């Protein structure tokens, strides 16, 4: 009985993700005094890409790249409970799901690396090199923060971590372990692919980076993941640091607010180069994470 509910979660989250990313893009456009895209633009773009009549392939891994990427997002979402206390939307969470979530966060990028390498385009290779180095630096503080939280609550189950945070805002990890949350939020900025850390995917940089060769349904699949993955990642953050969500409205609100953190930073700050962002993570975020682990 869990599978249909999990699929329902997936459906809700994909639609929410498509609308929310469009909304955030609109907000970003309003900051620049533009109207921005229509709120349903993501749907149209995806439909258009699925409807293209021709496509070319560069080999098996080229097919598998977007598949891996999407399964990274889907896996991350499905192995973490999305609504706390709900039997229906607990998905496939189990005792050690925190470790699995950490793995899935990285999984998509690795799959993408294989696919982009197969495409044979030099820009893809450069893009994925930059992407992997930046991701590695950005994930480090997150991993440290997760260790700190796991140590703090003495468990590797996301459900139990959420349970431990119930009973008021002051029980959230945000207040019980602020150092870990600070480190994790810095890492969050780095993995959302928004400025100042979007040098990997920004269209103005070495043309669009890893997906240079991807088109039609391959690209549409990656767009689906672009809508799904940030939400899935935020679900992990919400569960670990912000007390989880007890209902869908609470879920939507919290995910939106957490996403807005990176959107706010994004519209204010210009883009970092890769080596600058790596230095930034190593100097500011990693020590915080280490401190959080030590102090727990």
């Amino acid at each position: 009985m869990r599978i249909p509910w999990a699929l329902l979660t997936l459906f809700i989250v994909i639609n929410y993700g498509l609308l929310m990313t469009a909304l955030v893009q609109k907000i970003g456009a309003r900051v620049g005094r533009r109207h921005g895209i229509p709120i349903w633009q993501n749907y149209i773009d995806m439909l258009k890409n699925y409807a293209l009549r021709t496509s070319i392939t560069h080999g098996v891994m080229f097919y598998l790249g977007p598949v891996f990427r999407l399964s990274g997002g889907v896996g991350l979402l499905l192995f973490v409970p999305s609504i706390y206390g709900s039997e229906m939307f607990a998905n496939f969470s189990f005792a050690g799901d925190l470790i699995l979530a950490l793995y899935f966060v990285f999984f998509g990028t690795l799959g993408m690396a294989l696919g982009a390498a197969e495409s044979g385009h030099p820009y893809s290779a450069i893009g994925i090199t930059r992407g992997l180095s930046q991701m590695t630096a950005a994930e480090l503080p997150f991993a440290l923060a997760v260790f700190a939280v796991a140590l703090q609550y003495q468990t590797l189950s996301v459900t139990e971590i959420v349970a431990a945070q119930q009973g008021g805002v002051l029980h959230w990890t945000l207040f019980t372990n602020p150092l870990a949350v600070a480190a994790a939020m810095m890492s969050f900025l780095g993995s959302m692919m928004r400025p100042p850390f979007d040098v990997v995917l920004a269209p103005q940089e070495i043309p669009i980076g890893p997906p240079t060769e991807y088109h039609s349904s391959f690209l549409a699949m990656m767009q689906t993941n672009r809508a799904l993955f940030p939400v899935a990642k935020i679900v992990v953050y919400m569960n670990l640091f912000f007390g989880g969500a007890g209902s869908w409205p609470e879920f939507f609100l919290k995910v939106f607010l957490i996403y807005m953190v990176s959107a706010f930073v994004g519209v204010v700050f210009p883009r970092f180069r890769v080596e600058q962002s790596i230095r930034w993570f190593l100097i500011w975020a990693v020590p915080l994470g280490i401190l959080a682990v030590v102090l727990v």
Partner: protein
Amino acid sequence: MKEELLKRIVKTPDGQEIEIDPLRDYYCEAGPTVQPPAYTAIIEKLFNWARSESLWILGFGTGCGAIEMRPLMTPRFDAYRYGIQWRPTPRQSNLFVISGYLSVKTLKRVIRSYEQMQGPKYVVGLGSCTINGGMYWDSYNTIKRLDDYLPVDVYIAGCMPRPEALLAGFEELKKIIRAGKAEGANQYAANFDWYKANQKSVIHDWDMPDYNW
């Protein structure tokens, strides 16, 4: 043709002798095929609507008209609200704006980029130069009629047309796409030999395969 593109025998570091033919090795030679609308009318209608509302322009400024596209991104004209975006790679874009005069040297790159785009794809000729040569009508190295070399869906006249004219042209293109008449890619595939003959009549150093995917 450049020397590095010629067919030749090279010696590998481990002593083997292999024959390489860069034009064959790097590219695929299969020509384009006509891709008729594959689904029932109502689904094609939906797809055509989606195609018209999601125009991704290839960021390739071929001439002076490229400067007219920049204001479209800015607050004053903001083409994004019409579903128009710029993509940096031909693979992902489906609208090619030939922005102004097209020299023979650029035409070569334009053909390569156009052929790498995935169908259905559209071409907009921007400015008088693409229509009849414009002020470059007596130039020794610019083509005069774009539709001899690529299937063009919409022309936007002017020298230069203002960004408003571009927006109007894009709206016109949307109508054509929604009506299902923007079949430039199929036209190109059907009359492939004619287009190639025209292209080769002005590009004298043809050092690429006949079809770049």
